[in-house]
């Protein structure tokens, strides 16, 4: 890099004349002074470059192997539930549905989101069971999920992923993760170690309280007559700029029936949903619960007190069902932070974490070969 005699050769200068910036002959310039203390200057350069690379790696979490990252979280899902090519890392077993949301206009005073103006928007969704096994046996006690995507007329979208529990068992991603670790199957018994589960509960009073609330609500006997809860709080902003914290719930129009506990076939929940939706469209009221000052907006383990204002903003109708194999819903990430203008996340730490982890799961399964879903197209047609 130091100046050399070759540099001063006019032939070489001409040879590089087509290079950009080559606009003046080199001979004009004086040779640079040779500097003393070159090793020290080289050391400074090395340190500065090391600092830049170090800062970059630091930001990427390379120096904090204990830090909970989306990748480590999904690794843990995979350790507990296994890797099933092409499937979601949690809520792996599912079936897809379509329909529409008919807004009654009542939500406009809470949020300026176009979805709340009177009218109808198309909805695509997916019912699922919690857990990483896409071929799990249906159980009444397994968490049921419903992911929805509302397609707004101007190209905006609202996505939400709800479950049938009235309280979320974990207040933050660390608690969720620690519980996953505690529920890892023992290599000998292939069952989770009950002592680890008990130790987790003993150290997580939020979880114990939430589980007590969950246990007081016996699950319904189907996907169609279950209520689905958004659980995390969101900040709604209306056209006047006024904001309010809300949580949403889908309240089923189909009457509640308690599960019997009698042994049934492997896919009885999904088969029941398919039969039900083929008989008549299924409907839920979308109900917004509005927080009062002081209500916890960053802790989904704590339901808000009874008597909070509830606004029925419209009706969700689901009228067709399809196997994952043929439905575009399989390839949708029901990221709870895909929100239209007028809806924003609260400070609930679960929200950003869910967005990050869903994205990680989506990216992993996206590039994998898609294995057949448990609920096949023929299962849906029969």
């Amino acid at each position, binding site marked *: 890099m130091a100046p050399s005699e070759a540099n001063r050769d006019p032939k070489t200068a001409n040879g590089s004349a087509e290079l950009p910036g080559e606009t003046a002959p080199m001979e004009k310039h004086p040779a640079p002074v040779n500097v003393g203390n070159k090793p020290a*200057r080289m050391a400074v350069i090395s340190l500065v470059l090391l600092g830049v690379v170090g800062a970059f790696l630091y930001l990427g979490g390379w120096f904090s192997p204990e830090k909970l*990252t989306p990748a480590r979280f999904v690794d843990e899902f995979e350790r507990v539930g296994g890797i099933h090519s092409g499937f979601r890392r949690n809520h792996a077993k599912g079936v897809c549905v379509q329909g529409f949301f008919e807004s009654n206009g009542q939500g406009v005073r809470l949020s300026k989101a176009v979805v709340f103006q009177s009218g109808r928007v198309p909805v695509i969704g997916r019912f699922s069971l919690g857990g990483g096994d896409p071929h799990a046996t249906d159980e009444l006690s397994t968490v049921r999920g419903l992911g929805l995507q509302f397609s707004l007329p101007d190209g*905006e979208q609202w996505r939400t992923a709800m479950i049938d529990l009235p309280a979320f068992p974990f207040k933050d991603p660390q608690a969720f993760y620690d519980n996953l670790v505690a529920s890892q199957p023992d290599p000998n018994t292939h069952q989770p170690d009950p002592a680890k589960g008990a130790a987790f509960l003993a150290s997580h009073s939020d979880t114990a309280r939430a589980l007590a609330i969950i246990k007081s609500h016996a699950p319904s006997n189907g996907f169609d007559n279950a209520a689905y809860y958004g659980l995390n709080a969101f900040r709604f902003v209306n056209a006047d700029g006024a904001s309010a914290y809300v949580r949403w719930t889908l309240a089923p129009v189909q009457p509640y029936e308690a599960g019997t506990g009698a042994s049934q076939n492997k896919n009885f929940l999904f088969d029941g949903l398919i039969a039900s939706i083929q008989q008549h469209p299924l409907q839920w009221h979308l109900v917004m619960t509005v927080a009062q000052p002081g209500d916890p907006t960053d802790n989904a383990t704590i339901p808000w007190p009874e008597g909070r204002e509830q606004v029925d903003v419209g009706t969700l109708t689901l009228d067709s069902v399809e196997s994952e194999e043929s439905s575009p819903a399989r390839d949708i990430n029901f990221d709870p932070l895909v929100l239209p203008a007028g809806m924003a996340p609260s400070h609930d730490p679960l929200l950003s974490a869910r967005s990050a982890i869903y994205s990680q799961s989506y990216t992993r399964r996206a590039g994998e070969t898609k294995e057949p879903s448990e609920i096949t197209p023929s299962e849906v047609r029969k």
Partner: protein
Amino acid sequence: MSAITTTGRQQFNGSMRFLHWLMAAMVLTMLGIGVAMVASLGDYHRLVSIHRPLGVAILILVVIRFVNRQFSTLPPFPPTMSPQERSIAHASEVLLYSLLFLLPLVGWGMLSAARYPIVLYGSLHLFPILPHSVMLYAFLRRTHTFLAYLLFLTFVAHFAAILFHTLIVRDGLLSRMVPWRARAR
């Protein structure tokens, strides 16, 4: 471009210097946000919300910068640079411009293939530029990461070369790009 000006301008013109330093700040911020957000749970959403509009801004600016460059007269390389070094410098400029153009475009493309709404701010969002295909998304997502690391390494090399010229060769290479008007050498 090879027209020799009579005075032999020693500095990039004002608009080029302005765009260089504006984009330098944006791109470094972007690289930091990018590498941090993929390892973050709590800050993920906030960082992604900056990452997307900032990427679009970089895409627009790199096009403006490229066009501006075509209409500008470039200062000469200092005589201390050998032809080989000039070739390397030229190649690294081509690589940097290509990466600054491709990275946001691949980001836009991958979100399109995954059918994520590409929200810039409020209800303002970009249209998809590719069909819905998760396999395509997976490929572009990996490409995005690869290009980002390549951009970071190219930046480090660029920075190293400037440090070397400024502290060791001391040929005033940096004065061609400093934000202020440099004295003619």
